């Protein structure tokens, strides 16, 4: 069986699948990382991804431009992120409940808009999906090159965003302010930073990224929208943020492990692996769990995570 597994086609396919599965999770997780590092826990990510995939699709469908589709998806996501901001920052809502509410609300909203705009149709409208771009030279790298460097633009941009985000948190005043606000909002306030402004920006950006992650599903993977495009990817994104210790590269690692375990699981099944399929489907979750138990102990999130900031509480 091992020789069956370790073929080149298997490996390249496995890599490609890993990338495919991890990308939307990674996009959303990177955004959620901003929100959480600023102290806002947005459990509505799953819902925002659903809206993002619908808005992205509708945008692309009506404008005929995938780019505008992604823009629409991102904007819709940003709007919902902002709504989460208003709830958690201005109204000082309980963030866990507000996030769950947004999740349910978005499910309904996406499906409502979908039926309102496209109707209950027997044939789904569709758009052509984002093409893969093969990077010259790099795609010649043996074994990996063909898949790693033959991806759509969003994959490249997402991977590019990782060092950029790392840079933002390491070297810019934006990153510093976000961390300060999530860690010790009173200190940030006393240093002259507007806690609520930073949080609004971070949670809105988090929403924007979740919207993009959703749009990725409808525009880069499927070219159409159904209510069930994202089944739990947003929740996985939240897990990956914690798993990734709120740091960009670790988050990539988390998404990668989950993506790889998933990709492997489908392949094992197709190879008639002698286990009931439900147990194979468990693999990604169990792998995540085991890895966290082995390597991910003792991490605590930003100190002020999910706590509304009130100045006079001092």
């Amino acid at each position: 069986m091992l020789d069956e597994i370790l073929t080149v086609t298997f490996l390249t396919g496995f890599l490609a699948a890993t990338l495919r599965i991890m990308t939307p999770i990674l996009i959303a997780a990177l955004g959620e990382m901003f929100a959480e590092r600023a102290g806002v826990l947005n459990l509505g990510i799953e819902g925002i991804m659903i809206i993002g995939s619908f808005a992205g699709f509708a945008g692309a469908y009506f404008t005929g431009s995938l780019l505008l589709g992604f823009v629409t998806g991102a904007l819709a996501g940003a709007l919902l992120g902002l709504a989460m901001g208003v709830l958690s920052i201005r109204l000082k809502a309980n963030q866990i409940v507000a996030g769950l509410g947004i999740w349910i609300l978005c499910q309904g909203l996406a499906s409502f808009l979908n039926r309102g705009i496209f109707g209950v149709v027997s044939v789904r409208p569709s758009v052509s999906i984002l093409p893969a771009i093969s990077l010259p030279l790099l795609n010649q790298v043996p074994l990996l090159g063909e898949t790693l460097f033959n991806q759509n633009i969003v994959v490249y941009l997402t991977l590019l965003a990782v060092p950029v985000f790392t840079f933002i948190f390491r070297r810019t005043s934006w990153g510093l302010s976000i961390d300060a606000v999530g860690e010790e909002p009173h200190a940030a306030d006393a240093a002259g930073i507007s806690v609520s402004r930073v949080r609004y920006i971070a949670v809105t950006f988090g929403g924007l990224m979740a919207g993009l992650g959703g749009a990725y599903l409808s525009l880069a993977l499927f070219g159409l929208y159904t209510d069930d495009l994202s089944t739990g990817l947003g929740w996985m994104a939240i897990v990956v943020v914690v798993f990734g210790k709120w740091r960009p590269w670790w988050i990539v690692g988390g998404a990668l492990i989950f993506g790889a375990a998933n990709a492997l699981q489908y392949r094992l099944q197709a190879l008639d692996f002698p286990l009931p399929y439900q147990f194979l489907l468990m693999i990604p979750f169990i792998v995540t769990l085991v890895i966290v138990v082995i390597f991910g102990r003792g991490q605590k999130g930003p100190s002020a995570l999910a706590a509304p900031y009130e100045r006079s509480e001092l």
Partner: protein
Amino acid sequence: MQRDAVVVSMEGITKSFGGTTANDDISFCLEAGEIHGLLGENGAGKTTLMNILYGLHRPDSGCILVNQVERNITSPHEAIALGIGMVHQHFMQVPTLTVLDNVILGLRNAREPLLDREGARQRLGELSATYQLDVDPEAYIWQLSVGDRQRVEILKALYRDVSILILDEPTSVLTPQEAEELFAMIRVCVNRGMSVIFITHKLEEAMSITDRVTVLRDGRVVATRVTSETTKAELARLMVGREVLFRLSNDAARSPAGPVALEVERLRAISDRGVLAVRDVSFQVHGGEIVGIAGVDGNGQTELVQALTGLRPVESGRVVVDGVDLTNAAPQRILRQGVGHIPEDFDDALVGAFTLVENLALDLHYTPPFSRWGVLNREVMRQSAQQVIARYDVRTPHERVKARTLSGGNKQKVVIARETSRAIKLLIAAHPTRGLDIGAEEYIRGLLLELRNAGIAILLVSTKLDEILSLCDRILVIEKGRLMGEMARSEADIEKIGLLMAGTGA
């Protein structure tokens, strides 16, 4: 140095929080180039007044003039822009960031949004040199001692080019030497044209460094005095509203030392930073004596106390209480062996959201008579709380108030009450009077002596040398995790201890 121009004038400031009026029609003015002391008991409203000036609170009424111009300061951002800097009583720092990042936090620079750490490091170096404030800019805040954190807090203000510097109880965590360094720094500030507001509970300090003092009581201004024209006694009376004793004598009713209650042998413990913070410490404490551990903050006292109380693993060595080996025992076991523990921060001993009844029962709630078969007996808990509250004179309307609403002094009393009202043989008290006003301080020191006289062994960790000298029968000095020397009180004096603390004595 021009002394008469008024730089800050606060007029008719009133501020209340729910039921309590923290500031009641306060008028206060700061002249250019002066050091203005602000005195008052815990809860008198000093911090609130300064928070208003710094834009953290909005006054309910009253107005503020900065450099003769009326200002509406709604955020620290605006205060900073007006040249006001504040060193807070609770440090306003992000522990997970470095010193440098904390200093530049919230500031703009030419390369925005990029950080200019190189430039900042340079400027910080210069400031450190000018004001003699030494800290490693690359160190993380959580790694620093309290003294260092305070230096960071001051550097933050200086870095912002403030002309008005507010220091809220800056010396409550410092040793006398550190306090002296601070005063020297303040004088440099004033010489460079700054004006300083200095909040303290220590009258000696107020007398020695300030030009004028304003005394608050219950949210009102009681008096403003020129320092050279007043006395400690007068200030104390103004603050408390009655005469205050200044020295407690520990020789009264001194009983001979009893059997060994605590024996520590070659103890080693590792700090959160992963370094050996307690190095081969050995000492004994007998029943009926107070042994003091003096030292500059951050020299392993925290870790020592935690290792003794089961809150931190002991790497090697032994801890024996009353003949029982409690090395690495669980806190509960140690507590049940008759050890009381007053941690250095009373917020680590109290549950703010719990009533006094619950807080007072926290240590023994799982044993009869507080509970049986896992079920609490609320009535017993309540009665016991009432008794304890009366006995320790905790100032509270009733025993059902939430602990977080108490003043600092009263919170500390609750902790001490809980930890000493059960049958204990040994009390480990870390900085029991830190941040408390003179009235509360006096009370707690008296209480420690009483316990000592009742035959209890007390280990007192303190950075206040006057406290150590006035209370302890024997004094140990700790420096970099080692005990540097031991002396009876009769042999001790400030000089000698100070040298040991600096690591140069013995």
